[in-house]
């Protein structure tokens, strides 16, 4: 009898050990993605400055990039509970082509290595639209495509599937909160308290996770507007509408889509799809050592590319003002804070909660570069109600 029960638990894709293992793989995948993107930005920066790189340097960077892609595939397989042979095959094939080019170059003259051919196998991103039929393993033509596919697929696998099952089996709880988000919370241990097993809903009093409490404090700060009308001109409205029609994925994602928090006592991972943008936050803090960190990523928007860029710039400037290392590429912001004390981490999580709310619909209001300065000044002065309207309850 006991043996059967254990077997059943093992086979249950939502048993706690399995969730922990999948979540570890998800974290590793996100981390590999961040490292790879940072390396890619560095590589492009070096090339734009010097127009070339020593062959050995290029070789090392290509290898590091390849390793991150391999880790992404392996971790995706753990998260999704299935193999991805096409991805592995594509990565092997790209690697062989790179090695061939590099060996030919070094056999002749290191200076003759066609850098653009190597970078062409690594850097271009062809998979830009997750809703397009080309967004699949067979559509990956570069290492960057593989990384992008793994990231998107892992999010879908980790969070979108089995939600109903997870809630029913008590793995996820829906958080009642005074912001218009549907937040589902999974506890890895010590992150929730006072739970009534049969009730799938919890409220903020049940949250024991120290970093999640800080984020909630920021999200629910008076004046931070999560919903409501953002003043915009007719051009902005046309732009948002046109952009929505242009991209079927954006069209499908309604405002207030699901957000997920995976927590423990001193750990938080928060993934949120809000309207037309996506953000992830990974944070850990501890009392004993200064080993706390925050990793934050933000991308997307419904407005025109210039306006999305300006909102990303707004976010990047706020984060830099709070000591984050920040990299911005178009409407993508990657930011990190490392080796910080618990209090420093918590202060910044409160700030991030406010920032996520304030930035939510700001892209449509970014009519000019001056607007970026204006909103940055307001935020840094602690004035979060940018449009002078009361926050809807």
């Amino acid at each position: 009898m006991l043996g059967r029960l254990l077997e059943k638990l093992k086979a249950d894709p939502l048993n706690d050990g399995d969730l922990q293992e999948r979540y570890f793989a998800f974290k590793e995948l996100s981390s590999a993605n961040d490292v790879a993107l940072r390396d890619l930005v560095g590589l492009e920066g070096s090339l734009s400055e010097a127009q070339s790189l020593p062959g050995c340097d290029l070789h090392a960077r290509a290898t590091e990039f390849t390793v991150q892609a391999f880790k992404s595939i392996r971790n995706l397989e753990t998260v999704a509970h299935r193999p991805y042979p096409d991805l592995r095959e594509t990565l092997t094939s790209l690697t062989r082509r790179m090695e061939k080019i590099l060996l030919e170059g070094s056999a002749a003259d290191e200076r003759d290595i066609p850098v653009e051919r190597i970078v062409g196998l690594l850097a271009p991103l062809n998979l830009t639209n997750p809703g397009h039929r080309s967004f699949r393993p067979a559509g990956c033509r570069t290492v960057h495509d593989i990384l992008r596919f793994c990231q998107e697929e892992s999010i879908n696998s980790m969070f979108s599937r089995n939600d109903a099952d997870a809630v029913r089996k008590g793995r996820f709880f829906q958080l009642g909160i005074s912001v218009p988000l549907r937040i589902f919370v999974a506890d890895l241990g010590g992150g929730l308290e006072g739970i009534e097993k049969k009730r799938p809903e919890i409220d903020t009093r049940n949250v024991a996770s120290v970093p999640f409490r800080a984020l909630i404090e920021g999200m629910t700060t008076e004046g931070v507007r999560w919903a409501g009308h953002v003043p915009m001109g007719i051009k902005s409205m046309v732009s948002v509408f046109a952009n929505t029609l242009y991209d079927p994925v954006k069209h499908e994602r309604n405002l207030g889509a699901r957000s997920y928090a995976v927590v423990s006592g001193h750990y938080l991972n928060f993934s949120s799809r809000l309207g037309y943008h996506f953000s992830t936050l990974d944070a850990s803090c501890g009392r004993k050592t200064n080993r706390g960190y925050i990793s934050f990523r933000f991308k997307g928007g419904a407005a025109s590319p210039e306006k999305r860029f300006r909102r990303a710039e707004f976010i990047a400037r706020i984060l830099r003002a709070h000591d984050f290392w920040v990299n911005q590429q178009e409407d993508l912001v990657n930011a990190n804070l490392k080796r910080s004390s618990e209090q420093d981490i918590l202060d910044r999580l409160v700030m991030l909660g406010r920032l996520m709310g304030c930035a939510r619909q700001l892209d449509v209001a970014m009519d000019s570069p001056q607007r970026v300065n204006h909103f940055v000044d307001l935020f840094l002065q602690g004035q979060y109600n940018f449009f002078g309207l009361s926050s809807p309850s």
Partner: protein
Amino acid sequence: MGLSNRILLVDTEGELLEALKRGIEAVGFHVEVAGDGGKALELVELVSFDVVILEAWAPETGGLETLARIKQSRPETEVIILTVCESADKALEGMNGGAFDYLLKPCDSETLLERIHRAQEKKEMGE
């Protein structure tokens, strides 16, 4: 079984940087050193290490076999390859062989320690 906080550093070229060993010990790990793959395997049979660092690793010098035999003997032990071998092909061979990570030298101690902690976290979860 739990974590032992033991690290095995396999230095096949005899050029082990003392600083590397000291750096790992400074954060509370107990580090043992093996001069070649054979000695590493003997130690792995005897002691449960959390992480094995294969330093100066190269497939052509038996690195893949050492990796395979460590994983066969102690599947729960995570292996980090630390090498000057820049070939992406070889890196994939190592990762396909079950390595937790593949780090190119020079590698800063912060990165190495972060990867050791993550490898430990993974090992702990598998137990």
